[in-house]
């Protein structure tokens, strides 16, 4: 019996000829990641272990991004803890304010994630790097600590759902709409413990930024990882960003899947997830039929949608227009490089002239930390990844997850809208 792409990567990392779903394996890690929320807990744990330092100072990435620049004294103490640990252990890939970005946008940009890698990160959206043909998955702080100490982690080999993509996305529809559509179809536990493997002729029509967005939200369907095959677009991205050698793995032709789901990309519509679960999806047409949804805030950014193409899509819509009276619009380029590119391409000017504020890279509002926390009764259209109760602030506030295109159009109209409505 053949192996899925994920299984082949895990077999290599475990030093085995082959693995099958359900096997328990010990795998060698190519990268261990943590942020300012999860790393302090991991550092506390590693200090309790009888170990001498970290397994490899080049294979650990520490990215303070959630509550930085420090939002309060306690956050400052957490960041200090991470900074001091990085100094003490001479961690190569520690990113200070000024060079940091949102971790899952930053690491691929810095060439730290390449095809065939096995990556764990103490952040649930670590699954993002599957866009590059790597196996990457979110873990907790204790696993991160054990990973930093030993360079290994245990895994139960996952089975997989294959998403067979055909066609190409219509104008105004993006990778975000596709992944929201999928979560709406299979539910927030539809891929629980499983790999989500994207395949088929439709893959080549998806940009790398779309693939990052799609792999990023695999966790919102309960998935262990989301993964894309490596093609010309992947290689072009790697040539631009990475210098490390990599190995390309492909799923065997006779690989076994729990389920194969066919999706024709050309049939997708702008899609929005209503409060309070990412699976509560509605197309823009259904929304229009049910009446206007007035909003108070728009957030454009995050590890899901804070990359340059997201910024360009939003700017294209906002150019020459103004955000609706009384709507707060917060734009957050995900990394310093994206920020600089926005500056050079004139996007910052468009955002500011249209009435948005532009923030330094941070996860901030996505998890209700700061930079856009909601009050009771307020509604926000957000390009982030979760709309759980209280996620962005008050327990009685509401988050509508959408693409940058829908977010920008909604900012202009003041009600949930898409570009066709302008």
């Amino acid at each position: 019996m053949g192996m899925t792409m994920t299984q082949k990567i895990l077999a290599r990392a475990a030093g085995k000829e082959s693995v099958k779903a359900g096997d328990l394996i010990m795998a060698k890690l190519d990268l261990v990641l943590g942020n300012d929320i999860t790393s302090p807990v991991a550092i506390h744990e590693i200090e309790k272990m009888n170990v001498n330092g970290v397994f490899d100072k080049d294979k650990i990435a520490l990215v303070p991004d959630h509550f930085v620049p420090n939002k309060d004294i306690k956050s400052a103490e957490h960041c200090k803890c991470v900074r001091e640990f990085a100094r003490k252990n001479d961690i190569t890939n520690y990113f200070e304010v000024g060079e940091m970005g949102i971790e899952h946008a930053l690491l691929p940009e810095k060439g730290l994630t390449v095809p065939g890698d096995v990556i764990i990160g103490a952040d649930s959206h670590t699954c993002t790097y599957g866009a590059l043909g790597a196996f990457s998955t979110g873990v907790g702080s204790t696993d991160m600590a054990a990973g930093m100490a030993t360079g290994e982690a245990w895994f139960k080999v996952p089975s997989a759902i294959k998403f067979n993509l055909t066609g190409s996305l219509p104008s105004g529809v993006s990778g975000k709409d596709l992944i929201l559509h999928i979560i709406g179809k299979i539910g927030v536990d539809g891929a629980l413990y499983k790999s989500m493997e994207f395949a088929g002729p439709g893959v080549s029509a998806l940009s790398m930024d779309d693939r990052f967005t799609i792999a990023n939200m695999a966790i919102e369907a309960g998935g262990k990882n989301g993964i894309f095959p490596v093609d010309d677009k992947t290689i072009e991205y790697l040539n631009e960003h990475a210098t490390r050698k990599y190995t390309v793995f492909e799923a065997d032709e006779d690989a076994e899947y729990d389920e194969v789901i066919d999706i024709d990309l050309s049939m997708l519509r702008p899609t929005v997830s209503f409060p309070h679960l990412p699976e509560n999806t509605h197309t823009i047409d259904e929304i229009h039929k049910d009446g206007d949804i007035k909003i108070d805030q728009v957030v454009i950014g995050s590890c899901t949608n804070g990359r340059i193409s997201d910024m360009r899509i939003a700017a294209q819509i906002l150019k020459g227009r103004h955000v609706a009276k009384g709507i707060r619009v917060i734009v957050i380029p995900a990394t310093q490089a994206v920020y600089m590119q926005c500056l050079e391409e004139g996007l910052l000017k468009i955002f500011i002239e249209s009435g948005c504020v532009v923030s330094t890279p941070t996860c901030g509002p996505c998890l209700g930390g700061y930079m856009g926390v909601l009050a009771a009764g307020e509604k926000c259209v957000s390009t982030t990844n979760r709309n759980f109760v209280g996620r962005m602030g008050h327990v009685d506030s509401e988050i509508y997850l959408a693409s940058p295109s829908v977010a920008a159009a909604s900012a202009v109209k003041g009600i949930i809208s898409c570009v066709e409505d302008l």
Partner: protein
Amino acid sequence: MENAKGKVLKYGDNVDTDVIIPARYLNSSDPAELALHCMEDIDKDFSKRMNKGDIIVATKNFGCGSSREHAPIAIKASGISCVIAETFARIFYRNAINIGLPIIECAEASREIEDGDEVEIDFNTGLIKDLTKGTSYQGQAFPEFMQKLIASGGLVNYINNNN
């Protein structure tokens, strides 16, 4: 491992880590402080109505969302002796075991046990008894290494004890 016994606090599907411990409290990683806000956004009286040893019972996909280990830490530090659910989100499952919070999957128990019931769990056999209803359910038993891991208070102590 000793049996767990306590009153049940019952919840539904998809209890996420944002309601287990809201991110506004993640500027702390002190278990006692996290425990003060445990389950606050889904059950604001949680800390008032729970007693040490009580048991959380929920249905599908408990602990979905963020990878924050603060979620099982908050539950454990608040004195909950076990969480029973039909299924757990995978990162939460790993984290709970790693920090030594007993969790057990049992679809039937998660559906039938009600808020306020008195429940006893035998971790050696995986048997769950609802003492209020007089019913019992067969949950998944912990393998020996996992019992030892939980009994030693988590993965770190377990690794240290075995080195």
